[in-house]
Protein backbone atom coordinates (compact mmCIF):
# COMPACT_ATOMS: atom_id res chain seq x y z
CA UNK A 1 0.00 0.00 0.00
CA UNK A 2 1.26 3.36 -0.93
CA UNK A 3 0.15 5.29 2.06
CA UNK A 4 2.66 7.47 3.86
CA UNK A 5 0.62 8.61 6.79
CA UNK A 6 -2.43 6.96 8.18
CA UNK A 7 -4.72 8.42 10.79
CA UNK A 8 -7.13 5.84 12.05
CA UNK A 9 -10.10 6.55 14.20
CA UNK A 10 -8.42 9.25 16.22
CA UNK A 11 -10.00 10.86 19.27
CA UNK A 12 -8.40 13.99 20.66
CA UNK A 13 -9.28 17.13 22.60
CA UNK A 14 -7.82 19.98 24.61
CA UNK A 15 -6.87 19.43 28.22
CA UNK A 16 -9.64 17.58 30.06
CA UNK A 17 -12.20 19.02 27.68
CA UNK A 18 -14.57 17.10 25.45
CA UNK A 19 -13.29 15.13 22.49
CA UNK A 20 -13.08 17.55 19.58
CA UNK A 21 -11.91 14.91 17.17
CA UNK A 22 -13.99 11.83 17.43
CA UNK A 23 -13.15 9.18 14.92
CA UNK A 24 -11.15 11.09 12.36
CA UNK A 25 -9.72 9.08 9.49
CA UNK A 26 -7.13 10.19 7.01
CA UNK A 27 -4.86 8.57 4.50
CA UNK A 28 -2.02 10.48 2.97
CA UNK A 29 -0.29 9.24 -0.13
CA UNK A 30 3.21 10.24 -1.05
CA UNK A 31 3.84 13.05 -3.48
CA UNK A 32 0.25 14.17 -3.58
CA UNK A 33 -1.51 17.30 -2.43
CA UNK A 34 -4.33 16.67 0.05
CA UNK A 35 -6.84 19.27 0.99
CA UNK A 36 -9.01 19.14 4.09
CA UNK A 37 -12.10 21.28 4.16
CA UNK A 38 -14.90 21.73 6.64
CA UNK A 39 -16.83 24.33 8.55
CA UNK A 40 -15.31 26.48 11.27
CA UNK A 41 -14.67 24.57 14.41
CA UNK A 42 -14.93 21.21 12.74
CA UNK A 43 -11.61 20.12 14.13
CA UNK A 44 -9.35 20.55 11.12
CA UNK A 45 -6.62 22.36 12.95
CA UNK A 46 -7.07 20.01 15.85
CA UNK A 47 -6.39 17.09 13.54
CA UNK A 48 -3.14 18.57 12.31
CA UNK A 49 -2.08 19.34 15.86
CA UNK A 50 -2.80 15.79 16.89
CA UNK A 51 -0.66 14.45 14.07
CA UNK A 52 2.33 16.60 14.86
CA UNK A 53 2.28 15.86 18.56
CA UNK A 54 1.01 19.13 19.92
CA UNK A 55 -2.07 17.39 21.21
CA UNK A 56 -2.38 14.02 22.85
CA UNK A 57 -4.09 11.36 20.82
CA UNK A 58 -6.59 9.84 23.18
CA UNK A 59 -7.76 6.94 21.08
CA UNK A 60 -6.86 5.55 17.70
CA UNK A 61 -3.47 5.78 16.13
CA UNK A 62 -1.35 7.85 13.79
CA UNK A 63 0.95 5.75 11.64
CA UNK A 64 3.77 7.23 9.64
CA UNK A 65 5.54 4.79 7.36
CA UNK A 66 3.99 2.12 9.53
CA UNK A 67 5.42 3.60 12.71
CA UNK A 68 3.21 5.10 15.38
CA UNK A 69 3.68 8.79 16.10
CA UNK A 70 1.68 8.61 19.29
CA UNK A 71 3.37 10.14 22.28
CA UNK A 72 6.12 11.91 20.38
CA UNK A 73 6.94 15.55 21.03
CA UNK A 74 6.57 17.99 18.14
CA UNK A 75 10.31 18.35 17.78
CA UNK A 76 10.61 14.58 17.49
CA UNK A 77 7.86 14.41 14.90
CA UNK A 78 9.64 17.11 12.96
CA UNK A 79 12.82 15.09 12.93
CA UNK A 80 10.87 12.24 11.38
CA UNK A 81 10.18 14.52 8.44
CA UNK A 82 6.78 16.01 9.15
CA UNK A 83 6.68 19.76 9.13
CA UNK A 84 3.71 21.76 10.36
CA UNK A 85 2.82 25.39 9.73
CA UNK A 86 0.04 26.27 12.13
CA UNK A 87 -2.80 28.65 11.50
CA UNK A 88 -1.79 31.19 14.09
CA UNK A 89 1.47 32.18 12.53
CA UNK A 90 4.33 30.46 14.20
CA UNK A 91 6.87 33.22 13.91
CA UNK A 92 9.26 34.73 16.38
CA UNK A 93 8.00 38.28 16.50
CA UNK A 94 11.10 39.82 17.98
CA UNK A 95 13.60 38.08 15.78
CA UNK A 96 14.44 39.44 12.40
CA UNK A 97 13.17 37.85 9.23
CA UNK A 98 16.56 36.39 8.58
CA UNK A 99 16.81 34.96 12.06
CA UNK A 100 13.40 33.45 11.64
CA UNK A 101 14.64 31.77 8.50
CA UNK A 102 17.65 30.47 10.36
CA UNK A 103 15.43 29.06 13.04
CA UNK A 104 13.71 27.15 10.26
CA UNK A 105 16.89 25.19 9.86
CA UNK A 106 17.31 24.59 13.55
CA UNK A 107 16.63 20.88 13.34
CA UNK A 108 19.12 20.30 10.54
CA UNK A 109 22.01 18.22 11.75
CA UNK A 110 24.29 19.90 9.24
CA UNK A 111 23.99 23.65 9.03
CA UNK A 112 26.86 24.33 6.65
CA UNK A 113 24.51 24.84 3.71
CA UNK A 114 21.94 26.73 5.65
CA UNK A 115 22.87 30.25 4.66
CA UNK A 116 23.01 29.35 1.00
CA UNK A 117 19.69 27.64 1.16
CA UNK A 118 18.14 30.67 2.82
CA UNK A 119 19.57 32.90 0.12
CA UNK A 120 17.97 30.70 -2.51
CA UNK A 121 14.60 30.89 -0.89
CA UNK A 122 14.86 34.61 -0.41
CA UNK A 123 15.35 34.92 -4.14
CA UNK A 124 11.94 33.44 -4.61
CA UNK A 125 10.28 35.76 -2.10
CA UNK A 126 11.74 39.19 -2.74
CA UNK A 127 9.86 40.76 0.15
CA UNK A 128 11.79 38.57 2.57
CA UNK A 129 15.05 39.69 1.12
CA UNK A 130 14.01 43.28 1.28
CA UNK A 131 12.84 43.03 4.88
CA UNK A 132 15.63 40.77 6.06
CA UNK A 133 16.40 42.81 9.18
CA UNK A 134 12.87 43.78 10.11
CA UNK A 135 11.36 42.12 13.15
CA UNK A 136 8.94 39.50 11.97
CA UNK A 137 6.23 40.73 14.33
CA UNK A 138 6.05 44.06 12.58
CA UNK A 139 5.41 42.67 9.14
CA UNK A 140 1.96 42.80 7.62
CA UNK A 141 -0.32 39.82 7.96
CA UNK A 142 0.38 38.56 4.48
CA UNK A 143 4.09 39.09 4.77
CA UNK A 144 4.12 37.00 7.89
CA UNK A 145 2.25 34.24 6.16
CA UNK A 146 4.78 34.33 3.35
CA UNK A 147 7.61 34.06 5.80
CA UNK A 148 6.05 31.14 7.61
CA UNK A 149 5.62 29.29 4.33
CA UNK A 150 9.05 30.07 3.04
CA UNK A 151 10.61 28.88 6.23
CA UNK A 152 9.33 25.33 5.85
CA UNK A 153 11.07 25.06 2.53
CA UNK A 154 14.43 25.12 4.20
CA UNK A 155 13.97 21.70 5.63
CA UNK A 156 12.86 19.72 2.57
CA UNK A 157 10.63 17.52 4.71
CA UNK A 158 8.67 14.47 3.60
CA UNK A 159 5.33 15.88 4.56
CA UNK A 160 4.36 19.50 4.91
CA UNK A 161 1.17 20.24 6.77
CA UNK A 162 -0.19 23.69 6.11
CA UNK A 163 -3.05 25.19 8.04
CA UNK A 164 -4.73 27.69 5.74
CA UNK A 165 -1.69 28.86 3.83
CA UNK A 166 -3.66 31.29 1.70
CA UNK A 167 -4.98 33.15 4.68
CA UNK A 168 -4.53 36.87 4.29
CA UNK A 169 -2.57 36.68 1.09
CA UNK A 170 -3.27 38.91 -1.85
CA UNK A 171 -4.79 37.04 -4.77
CA UNK A 172 -1.64 37.27 -6.81
CA UNK A 173 0.39 35.75 -4.03
CA UNK A 174 -2.19 33.10 -3.34
CA UNK A 175 -1.75 31.88 -6.86
CA UNK A 176 2.00 31.89 -6.41
CA UNK A 177 1.59 30.04 -3.20
CA UNK A 178 -0.33 27.23 -4.80
CA UNK A 179 2.16 27.15 -7.61
CA UNK A 180 4.94 26.70 -5.12
CA UNK A 181 2.99 24.00 -3.44
CA UNK A 182 2.52 22.11 -6.68
CA UNK A 183 6.17 22.51 -7.34
CA UNK A 184 7.03 21.08 -3.97
CA UNK A 185 4.73 18.18 -4.67
CA UNK A 186 6.48 17.65 -7.94
CA UNK A 187 9.74 17.44 -6.03
CA UNK A 188 8.20 14.60 -4.07
CA UNK A 189 7.14 16.45 -0.99
CA UNK A 190 3.77 15.34 0.24
CA UNK A 191 1.39 18.07 1.13
CA UNK A 192 -1.50 18.10 3.52
CA UNK A 193 -3.36 21.33 3.69
CA UNK A 194 -6.40 22.75 5.36
CA UNK A 195 -8.21 25.41 3.42
CA UNK A 196 -11.23 27.57 3.90
CA UNK A 197 -10.60 28.98 0.48
CA UNK A 198 -11.95 25.63 -0.52
CA UNK A 199 -12.41 26.18 -4.22
CA UNK A 200 -8.90 27.29 -4.71
CA UNK A 201 -7.59 24.62 -2.40
CA UNK A 202 -9.39 21.77 -4.03
CA UNK A 203 -8.58 22.95 -7.50
CA UNK A 204 -4.94 22.72 -6.69
CA UNK A 205 -5.14 19.39 -4.90
CA UNK A 206 -5.24 15.76 -5.85
CA UNK A 207 -7.28 14.55 -2.97
CA UNK A 208 -10.04 16.16 -0.95
CA UNK A 209 -11.20 15.35 2.55
CA UNK A 210 -14.27 16.70 4.30
CA UNK A 211 -14.06 16.97 8.04
CA UNK A 212 -17.06 17.89 10.09
CA UNK A 213 -18.16 17.26 13.67
CA UNK A 214 -14.73 15.88 14.40
CA UNK A 215 -15.24 13.04 11.94
CA UNK A 216 -14.17 12.43 8.41
CA UNK A 217 -17.34 12.65 6.40
CA UNK A 218 -15.99 12.24 2.95
CA UNK A 219 -12.77 11.55 1.25
CA UNK A 220 -12.04 11.23 -2.42
CA UNK A 221 -10.31 12.70 -5.43
CA UNK A 222 -10.40 16.46 -5.33
CA UNK A 223 -12.46 16.68 -8.48
CA UNK A 224 -15.17 14.47 -7.06
CA UNK A 225 -15.30 16.52 -3.93
CA UNK A 226 -15.63 19.71 -5.92
CA UNK A 227 -18.48 18.36 -7.91
CA UNK A 228 -20.50 16.75 -5.19
CA UNK A 229 -23.64 18.92 -4.89
CA UNK A 230 -24.07 18.13 -1.22
CA UNK A 231 -20.57 19.25 -0.48
CA UNK A 232 -21.01 22.34 -2.55
CA UNK A 233 -24.06 23.17 -0.58
CA UNK A 234 -22.62 22.52 2.84
CA UNK A 235 -19.04 23.60 2.52
CA UNK A 236 -18.31 25.45 -0.66
CA UNK A 237 -20.76 28.28 -0.45
CA UNK A 238 -23.70 26.77 -2.24
CA UNK A 239 -24.78 27.05 -5.81
CA UNK A 240 -22.43 29.89 -6.55
CA UNK A 241 -19.54 27.47 -6.47
CA UNK A 242 -20.70 25.63 -9.50
Amino acid at each position, binding site marked *: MSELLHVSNVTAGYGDGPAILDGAELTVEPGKVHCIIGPNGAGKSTLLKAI*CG*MLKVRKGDVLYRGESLKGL*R*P*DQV*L*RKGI*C*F*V*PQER*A*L*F*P*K*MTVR*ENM*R*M*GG*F*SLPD*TSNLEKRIDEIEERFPILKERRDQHAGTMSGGQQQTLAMA*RTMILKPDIVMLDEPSLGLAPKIVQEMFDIMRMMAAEGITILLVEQNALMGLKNSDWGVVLDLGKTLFSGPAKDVLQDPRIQDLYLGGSKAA
Partner: protein
Amino acid sequence: MADILQTLILGLALGGVFALMGSGLSLVFGVMRIVNLAHPVMIIAGAYVAYWGFKLYGIDPLVMLPVAIVILAVIGILLYKLVFEREARSAKYSEMTVLLTFAVAMIVEGALGGLFTNTQRVTSPAYATDAIFIGDVFIPTGQLYAGILSLVIIAGLALFLKYSRFGYAIRATTQNREAAELLGVNVSMVALVSFAIGIGLAGAAGSLVSFVFSFFPAKHWEWIAVLMSLVVLGGMGSLLGTVVASFLLSVIAAFVGTYIGATWSTMTFFLALFLILLVRPQGLFGEKPELA
Protein backbone atom coordinates in the same frame (compact mmCIF):
# COMPACT_ATOMS: atom_id res chain seq x y z
CA MET B 1 37.25 67.73 41.77
CA ALA B 2 38.83 64.85 43.59
CA ASP B 3 35.51 64.46 45.38
CA ILE B 4 33.62 64.18 42.15
CA LEU B 5 36.07 61.72 40.72
CA GLN B 6 36.01 59.70 43.89
CA THR B 7 32.25 59.57 43.96
CA LEU B 8 32.21 58.51 40.34
CA ILE B 9 34.66 55.71 41.05
CA LEU B 10 32.68 54.48 44.02
CA GLY B 11 29.50 54.52 41.98
CA LEU B 12 31.07 52.57 39.15
CA ALA B 13 32.58 50.10 41.60
CA LEU B 14 29.19 49.25 43.01
CA GLY B 15 27.63 49.23 39.56
CA GLY B 16 29.72 46.31 38.42
CA VAL B 17 28.49 44.12 41.23
CA PHE B 18 24.88 45.14 40.75
CA ALA B 19 25.18 44.40 37.06
CA LEU B 20 26.00 40.78 37.70
CA MET B 21 23.39 40.50 40.42
CA GLY B 22 20.79 41.78 38.00
CA SER B 23 21.86 39.92 34.90
CA GLY B 24 20.68 36.49 36.01
CA LEU B 25 17.35 37.99 36.85
CA SER B 26 17.22 39.62 33.48
CA LEU B 27 18.11 36.41 31.69
CA VAL B 28 15.50 34.33 33.42
CA PHE B 29 12.94 36.99 32.71
CA GLY B 30 14.03 37.28 29.13
CA VAL B 31 13.82 33.59 28.43
CA MET B 32 11.04 32.39 30.63
CA ARG B 33 9.09 35.57 31.31
CA ILE B 34 9.46 34.78 34.97
CA VAL B 35 10.15 37.61 37.37
CA ASN B 36 12.25 35.52 39.66
CA LEU B 37 11.82 36.98 43.09
CA ALA B 38 13.92 34.10 44.38
CA HIS B 39 16.95 35.40 42.54
CA PRO B 40 18.30 37.50 45.41
CA VAL B 41 18.03 34.62 47.84
CA MET B 42 19.93 32.49 45.36
CA ILE B 43 22.65 35.10 45.37
CA ILE B 44 22.78 34.68 49.11
CA ALA B 45 23.01 30.94 48.71
CA GLY B 46 25.93 31.53 46.35
CA ALA B 47 27.52 33.77 48.91
CA TYR B 48 27.27 30.97 51.46
CA VAL B 49 29.12 28.65 49.13
CA ALA B 50 31.93 31.18 48.94
CA TYR B 51 31.74 31.79 52.65
CA TRP B 52 32.17 28.16 53.62
CA GLY B 53 34.93 27.71 51.12
CA PHE B 54 36.70 30.64 52.69
CA LYS B 55 35.94 29.77 56.26
CA LEU B 56 36.67 26.05 56.16
CA TYR B 57 39.47 25.83 53.65
CA GLY B 58 40.59 29.41 53.28
CA ILE B 59 39.77 29.38 49.56
CA ASP B 60 39.59 32.77 47.95
CA PRO B 61 36.01 33.67 47.01
CA LEU B 62 37.15 34.40 43.48
CA VAL B 63 38.37 30.84 43.25
CA MET B 64 35.13 29.59 44.73
CA LEU B 65 33.20 31.39 42.03
CA PRO B 66 33.08 28.53 39.53
CA VAL B 67 32.17 26.15 42.31
CA ALA B 68 29.34 28.44 43.34
CA ILE B 69 28.15 28.61 39.74
CA VAL B 70 28.05 24.85 39.46
CA ILE B 71 26.36 24.27 42.80
CA LEU B 72 23.75 26.91 42.18
CA ALA B 73 23.17 25.73 38.62
CA VAL B 74 22.43 22.29 40.01
CA ILE B 75 20.03 23.81 42.49
CA GLY B 76 18.49 25.66 39.57
CA ILE B 77 17.99 22.43 37.68
CA LEU B 78 16.36 20.76 40.65
CA LEU B 79 14.17 23.75 41.24
CA TYR B 80 13.13 23.84 37.63
CA LYS B 81 12.30 20.17 37.56
CA LEU B 82 10.40 20.24 40.81
CA VAL B 83 8.61 23.53 40.57
CA PHE B 84 8.75 25.44 37.35
CA GLU B 85 8.55 22.80 34.69
CA ARG B 86 4.83 22.38 34.95
CA GLU B 87 4.37 26.13 35.11
CA ALA B 88 6.41 26.70 31.99
CA ARG B 89 4.05 24.50 30.05
CA SER B 90 0.94 26.47 30.78
CA ALA B 91 1.58 30.05 29.84
CA LYS B 92 -1.84 30.87 31.13
CA TYR B 93 -0.68 31.01 34.70
CA SER B 94 2.40 33.07 34.07
CA GLU B 95 1.59 35.69 36.66
CA MET B 96 1.23 32.95 39.22
CA THR B 97 4.82 32.10 38.58
CA VAL B 98 5.91 35.39 40.09
CA LEU B 99 4.26 34.36 43.28
CA LEU B 100 5.66 30.90 43.00
CA THR B 101 9.14 32.38 42.92
CA PHE B 102 8.18 34.31 45.98
CA ALA B 103 7.33 31.07 47.71
CA VAL B 104 10.60 29.59 46.60
CA ALA B 105 12.38 32.60 48.05
CA MET B 106 10.75 31.92 51.39
CA ILE B 107 11.60 28.24 51.26
CA VAL B 108 15.24 28.90 50.44
CA GLU B 109 15.47 31.61 53.06
CA GLY B 110 14.01 29.30 55.66
CA ALA B 111 16.34 26.51 54.64
CA LEU B 112 19.41 28.72 54.70
CA GLY B 113 18.37 30.16 58.03
CA GLY B 114 17.86 26.69 59.44
CA LEU B 115 21.24 25.52 58.17
CA PHE B 116 23.42 28.54 58.77
CA THR B 117 21.42 30.66 61.24
CA ASN B 118 20.71 34.29 60.64
CA THR B 119 24.14 35.43 61.74
CA GLN B 120 25.57 37.88 59.27
CA ARG B 121 28.58 36.69 57.38
CA VAL B 122 31.19 38.16 55.19
CA THR B 123 34.36 36.76 53.66
CA SER B 124 37.50 38.72 54.26
CA PRO B 125 40.16 38.13 51.65
CA ALA B 126 42.82 40.78 52.00
CA TYR B 127 41.76 42.71 48.93
CA ALA B 128 38.23 43.14 50.26
CA THR B 129 39.27 45.95 52.57
CA ASP B 130 42.09 47.27 50.49
CA ALA B 131 42.22 50.08 48.02
CA ILE B 132 44.52 51.43 45.36
CA PHE B 133 45.33 55.02 46.16
CA ILE B 134 46.14 57.41 43.36
CA GLY B 135 46.90 60.62 45.11
CA ASP B 136 43.84 61.44 47.09
CA VAL B 137 41.56 59.21 45.13
CA PHE B 138 41.21 55.53 45.79
CA ILE B 139 39.79 52.55 44.00
CA PRO B 140 38.54 49.81 46.33
CA THR B 141 40.23 46.65 45.13
CA GLY B 142 37.50 44.26 46.22
CA GLN B 143 34.88 46.01 44.19
CA LEU B 144 37.30 46.52 41.34
CA TYR B 145 37.91 42.79 41.02
CA ALA B 146 34.25 42.05 41.45
CA GLY B 147 33.27 44.59 38.82
CA ILE B 148 35.76 43.38 36.25
CA LEU B 149 34.80 39.78 36.78
CA SER B 150 31.11 40.61 36.48
CA LEU B 151 31.64 42.34 33.19
CA VAL B 152 33.63 39.43 31.84
CA ILE B 153 30.93 36.98 32.82
CA ILE B 154 28.17 39.12 31.40
CA ALA B 155 30.01 39.68 28.15
CA GLY B 156 30.53 35.95 27.81
CA LEU B 157 26.88 35.35 28.40
CA ALA B 158 25.84 37.98 25.89
CA LEU B 159 28.05 36.49 23.21
CA PHE B 160 26.73 33.06 23.98
CA LEU B 161 23.15 34.20 23.62
CA LYS B 162 23.76 36.12 20.46
CA TYR B 163 25.79 33.66 18.48
CA SER B 164 25.46 30.14 19.75
CA ARG B 165 22.89 27.77 18.37
CA PHE B 166 21.59 27.38 21.84
CA GLY B 167 21.25 31.13 22.14
CA TYR B 168 19.01 31.09 19.12
CA ALA B 169 16.93 28.35 20.64
CA ILE B 170 16.61 30.33 23.83
CA ARG B 171 15.43 33.45 22.10
CA ALA B 172 13.06 31.53 19.87
CA THR B 173 11.51 29.74 22.80
CA THR B 174 11.01 33.02 24.60
CA GLN B 175 9.10 34.52 21.78
CA ASN B 176 6.96 31.67 20.65
CA ARG B 177 7.16 28.45 22.47
CA GLU B 178 4.88 26.53 20.19
CA ALA B 179 6.66 27.65 17.05
CA ALA B 180 10.03 26.76 18.49
CA GLU B 181 8.76 23.33 19.29
CA LEU B 182 7.47 22.93 15.75
CA LEU B 183 10.86 23.84 14.40
CA GLY B 184 12.54 21.14 16.37
CA VAL B 185 13.59 22.89 19.54
CA ASN B 186 13.30 20.81 22.66
CA VAL B 187 11.72 23.62 24.57
CA SER B 188 11.66 22.12 28.02
CA MET B 189 15.37 21.48 27.71
CA VAL B 190 15.94 25.06 26.66
CA ALA B 191 13.99 26.41 29.56
CA LEU B 192 15.81 24.10 31.93
CA VAL B 193 19.23 25.11 30.74
CA SER B 194 18.53 28.80 30.69
CA PHE B 195 17.05 28.66 34.15
CA ALA B 196 20.13 26.81 35.33
CA ILE B 197 22.34 29.47 33.76
CA GLY B 198 20.31 32.20 35.43
CA ILE B 199 20.64 30.63 38.83
CA GLY B 200 24.27 29.85 38.12
CA LEU B 201 24.78 33.56 37.58
CA ALA B 202 23.26 34.14 40.98
CA GLY B 203 25.94 31.82 42.31
CA ALA B 204 28.63 33.85 40.59
CA ALA B 205 27.17 37.08 41.91
CA GLY B 206 26.94 35.52 45.34
CA SER B 207 30.61 34.74 45.59
CA LEU B 208 31.45 38.31 44.64
CA VAL B 209 28.87 39.67 47.02
CA SER B 210 30.37 37.63 49.81
CA PHE B 211 33.23 40.05 50.20
CA VAL B 212 31.52 43.21 49.04
CA PHE B 213 28.52 43.17 51.35
CA SER B 214 27.77 41.20 54.43
CA PHE B 215 24.84 38.89 54.17
CA PHE B 216 22.45 36.63 56.01
CA PRO B 217 19.45 34.67 54.74
CA ALA B 218 16.84 37.36 55.33
CA LYS B 219 18.92 40.00 53.61
CA HIS B 220 17.53 39.23 50.18
CA TRP B 221 14.41 41.27 50.82
CA GLU B 222 16.55 44.36 50.77
CA TRP B 223 17.89 43.49 47.38
CA ILE B 224 14.74 42.54 45.57
CA ALA B 225 13.47 46.00 44.91
CA VAL B 226 16.87 47.38 44.03
CA LEU B 227 17.62 44.61 41.55
CA MET B 228 14.15 44.88 40.11
CA SER B 229 14.55 48.55 39.52
CA LEU B 230 17.75 47.84 37.58
CA VAL B 231 16.03 45.31 35.42
CA VAL B 232 13.05 47.51 34.71
CA LEU B 233 15.11 50.56 34.04
CA GLY B 234 17.25 48.60 31.61
CA GLY B 235 14.20 47.19 29.91
CA MET B 236 12.80 43.87 31.01
CA GLY B 237 14.92 41.07 29.67
CA SER B 238 17.62 43.20 28.11
CA LEU B 239 21.03 42.19 29.37
CA LEU B 240 22.74 45.25 28.04
CA GLY B 241 20.05 47.40 29.56
CA THR B 242 20.58 45.85 32.96
CA VAL B 243 24.28 46.54 32.83
CA VAL B 244 23.86 50.12 31.71
CA ALA B 245 21.15 50.72 34.29
CA SER B 246 23.35 49.27 37.03
CA PHE B 247 26.20 51.61 36.34
CA LEU B 248 23.98 54.56 35.75
CA LEU B 249 21.99 54.17 38.91
CA SER B 250 24.92 53.30 41.11
CA VAL B 251 26.75 56.39 39.99
CA ILE B 252 23.72 58.59 40.49
CA ALA B 253 23.13 57.01 43.87
CA ALA B 254 26.72 57.68 44.84
CA PHE B 255 26.41 61.34 43.94
CA VAL B 256 23.13 61.62 45.77
CA GLY B 257 24.75 59.94 48.76
CA THR B 258 27.66 62.35 48.72
CA TYR B 259 25.93 65.57 47.97
CA ILE B 260 22.41 65.15 49.27
CA GLY B 261 22.41 62.53 51.96
CA ALA B 262 22.79 58.82 52.56
CA THR B 263 19.09 58.37 53.17
CA TRP B 264 18.28 59.52 49.72
CA SER B 265 20.86 57.46 47.92
CA THR B 266 18.77 54.29 48.18
CA MET B 267 15.80 56.28 47.10
CA THR B 268 17.58 57.03 43.84
CA PHE B 269 16.88 53.56 42.57
CA PHE B 270 13.19 53.75 43.21
CA LEU B 271 12.70 57.29 42.09
CA ALA B 272 14.58 56.57 38.91
CA LEU B 273 12.29 53.65 38.37
CA PHE B 274 9.28 55.86 38.73
CA LEU B 275 10.60 58.53 36.45
CA ILE B 276 11.47 56.04 33.81
CA LEU B 277 8.04 54.49 33.99
CA LEU B 278 6.61 57.92 33.55
CA VAL B 279 8.49 58.84 30.42
CA ARG B 280 9.56 55.55 28.94
CA PRO B 281 7.64 52.64 30.39
CA GLN B 282 9.55 50.06 28.38
CA GLY B 283 12.84 51.01 30.03
CA LEU B 284 16.04 52.07 28.36
CA PHE B 285 16.44 49.15 26.02
CA GLY B 286 13.01 47.58 26.09
CA GLU B 287 10.59 47.21 23.26
CA LYS B 288 7.93 49.82 23.05
CA PRO B 289 4.59 48.33 23.97
CA GLU B 290 1.52 48.69 21.84
CA LEU B 291 -0.95 51.38 22.71
CA ALA B 292 1.08 54.17 24.18
